[in-house]
């Protein structure tokens, strides 16, 4: 079994990339792989709790559901999160920044964490770009 890291830069409902990222993560987890999802730029908005949707898949709920898997991690970039008002304050001893806006289990860390994930991954895909 391998480790997959998904880099996601699109925000929810602006493209279908967040939905595809969740579906790819779901399938990979079901097949026994370990999956990391790194949220960058508008991608950090995907883990916000309290998203209310009518007809489209609820990305926050999808991530919350996926986070029940032991082998799934969601990490957001601190710079992107701070600029969007999601994170404030200083990092704790694990390098996580506080937020009360995220679904349980999603964490905010330095962009350096992406480098660590890439080094530890067998496969990496980037869901970036719009339209």
């Amino acid at each position, binding site marked *: 079994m391998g480790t997959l890291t998904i880099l996601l830069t699109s925000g929810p409902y602006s493209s*279908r990339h967040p939905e*595809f990222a969740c579906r790819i993560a779901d*399938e990979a987890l079901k*097949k026994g792989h370990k999956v990391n999802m790194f949220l960058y730029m508008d991608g950090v908005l995907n883990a916000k709790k309290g998203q209310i949707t009518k007809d489209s898949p609820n990305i926050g709920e999808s991530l919350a559901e996926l986070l029940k898997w032991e082998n799934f991690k969601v990490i957001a970039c601190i710079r992107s999160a701070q600029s969007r008002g999601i994170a404030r304050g200083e990092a704790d001893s694990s390098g996580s920044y506080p937020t009360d806006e995220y679904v349980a289990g999603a964490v905010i860390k330095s962009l350096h964490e992406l480098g660590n994930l890439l080094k530890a991954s067998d496969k990496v*895909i980037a*869901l970036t770009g719009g339209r």
Partner: protein
Amino acid sequence: MSNSHIAVALTHSPYSGEREGLFRLLVLWADQSADLRIYLMGNGVLAAKEGSQLEDVISELTQKGVVFLADKKELNARGLRNTIRNLRVTDNLVSEFVDDLMKKDWKALVI
């Protein structure tokens, strides 16, 4: 590129941005004997419409052994009944993509 295995997920319309150029790249890779599987997701399925301007290049690619796969639900959602020849329509597109993506010798691109 010979003996390379590449899975490409096309997730946007092939007519938006510079994505039509992707097909020229695919021809180049196919000519270099790469093993290519093209996954049409979301608006990517628009590439599979019969009579579209991409039909000739896709036909050329399939003759070179490139496999095109499309998600049945996405085709149906867009009313695409008449699709290109040799298109593989599947209910489990994402699952098949993940199988290729996680294979040791495969590379994957999401565009």
